[in-house]
């Protein structure tokens, strides 16, 4: 078996600031990797560089597609990258407004990726949308409602349905539980965990929420000032942190 996503030597600078400083990371099929760190540590930049949204100044990102071919994400044409981003990848944003079309109904939001992939049968698009609404615990009877009539937690679940309807192999999640209250967070994490398990998804999760990382991730990567300072199995990193910064991070979690 070979990694699904493999990055090496990533460098990205904003002026004098090093957002990514020689970062190396690999993600295996079916694996959930959490990238944790404080604000400004470079975790979102890493996500954007890995998913092809920003081009790093140095380094390379290889993605192995469904056909088993290794593709250099930043050397692909825009058309090819978009095709992969729409069929084999999913992207879940912290703010649902970035991930959803607020002007059209929930059903259209879920159906958009299907239509982008060429689906032209209205009935089967609706059936798929209804099925996915049920799977993310939304009432399919509300599929013609606009997302702005949904609560924050429901909008996040709608984002999940919109991502997963085309059966991606890799999902990038940027703070999926940010801005939600704790009980809603718990339900969402539970749902994500069940779907990841069921579909065998690989997930790259960026979060500053250590508890979410512990619940979802197999492996944790700790970032600080654009560098990966520690990396290992989730329980090992959280229960036996080696790096001083990780120790600080783990000890600053508030126990309820």
């Amino acid at each position, binding site marked *: 078996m070979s990694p699904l996503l493999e990055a090496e030597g990533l460098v990205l600078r904003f002026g004098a600031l090093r957002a990514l400083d020689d970062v190396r990371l690999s993600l295996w099929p079916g694996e959930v990797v959490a990238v944790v760190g404080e604000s400004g540590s470079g975790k979102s930049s890493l996500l954007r560089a890995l998913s092809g949204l920003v081009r790093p100044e140095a380094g390379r990102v290889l993605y192995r597609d469904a056909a088993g071919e290794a593709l250099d994400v930043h050397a692909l044409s*825009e*058309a090819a990258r*978009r095709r992969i981003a729409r069929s084999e990848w999913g992207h879940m944003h912290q703010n649902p407004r970035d991930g959803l*079309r607020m002007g*059209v*109904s929930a*059903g*259209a939001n879920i*159906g*958009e*990726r299907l*239509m*982008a992939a060429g689906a*032209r*049968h*209205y*009935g089967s*698009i*609706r059936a798929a949308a209804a099925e996915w609404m049920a799977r993310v615990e939304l009432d399919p009877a509300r*599929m*013609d409602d606009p997302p702005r009539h949904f609560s924050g937690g429901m909008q996040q679940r709608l984002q999940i349905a919109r991502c997963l309807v085309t059966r991606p192999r890799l999902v990038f999640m940027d703070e999926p539980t940010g801005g939600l209250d704790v009980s809603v967070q718990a339900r969402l994490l539970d749902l994500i965990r069940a779907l990841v398990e069921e579909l065998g998804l690989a997930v790259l999760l960026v979060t500053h929420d250590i508890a979410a990382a512990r619940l979802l991730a197999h492996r944790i990567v700790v970032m600080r000032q654009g560098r990966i300072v520690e990396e290992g199995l989730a329980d090992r990193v959280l229960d036996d942190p080696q790096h001083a910064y990780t120790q600080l991070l783990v000890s600053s979690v508030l126990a309820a």
Partner: protein
Amino acid sequence: MIRRAILKAIAIPGHQIPFGAREMPLPYGWGTGGIQVTASILGPSDVLKVIDQGADDTTNAVSIRRFFARTAGVATTTRTAEATVIQTRHRIPERPLREDQILVFQVPMPEPLFRLEPRLAETRRLHALADYSLAQVKLYEDIAQQGESASSYNHPVLVNGRYLMSPSPIPGFDNPKLDRNPALLLFGAGREKKIYAVPPYTPVKSLDFDDHPFAPMRAPHPCALCGSTAHYLDEIVTDDRGGRMFVCSDTDACADAAAGAPR
């Protein structure tokens, strides 16, 4: 320069070609794009017909026809069968066009994604990537909310399986006539400075779903003047007590049918 843009447009069916639209002796929205295209293709032996919503006798049609008769010295006609160049605003004549005819459309807004994506740079990228899911989402939303497509005119079409194109605000009734039409179809947008074309016999498909096929609409009445049940009808309000009549929008086809002439 306009002819070069027209050649490019014919070479890439449905793709919008920018051109330097000139100052015209009439306001934008009165057919400046159509007039520039017509002016650049008219030859001495051409016979020009101008229609406005199907009619030959409205102010706009009459003045454009007279303008070209005076400046280009071409023959003019109101008969579709006799014309070699037809400039039209928002209709395609009822009589089937021939290979030796050119139809010039006046286009107010050439960008079919205009209402869906406000950034023009982004619409160009979407055209380049042939990414038209946005238009399909709009159609999905229309059907979900209203049970049918909400656009009874200016319904977007896919040209030659590649470019999404605005057919100009012709009624959906005319959309099927775009498909594999023997005539050359040219589209001129003066204010937006774009020219595009559908060459003869090019496949043109109205955007739809497999299980909700595009359905052109026509008022379910016969024409009050000629009795036609096949022509596209205009609804005319005749008084302020709800009186109305339905008449053919294509005046030439209506006159033919009324005279009993074979179509």
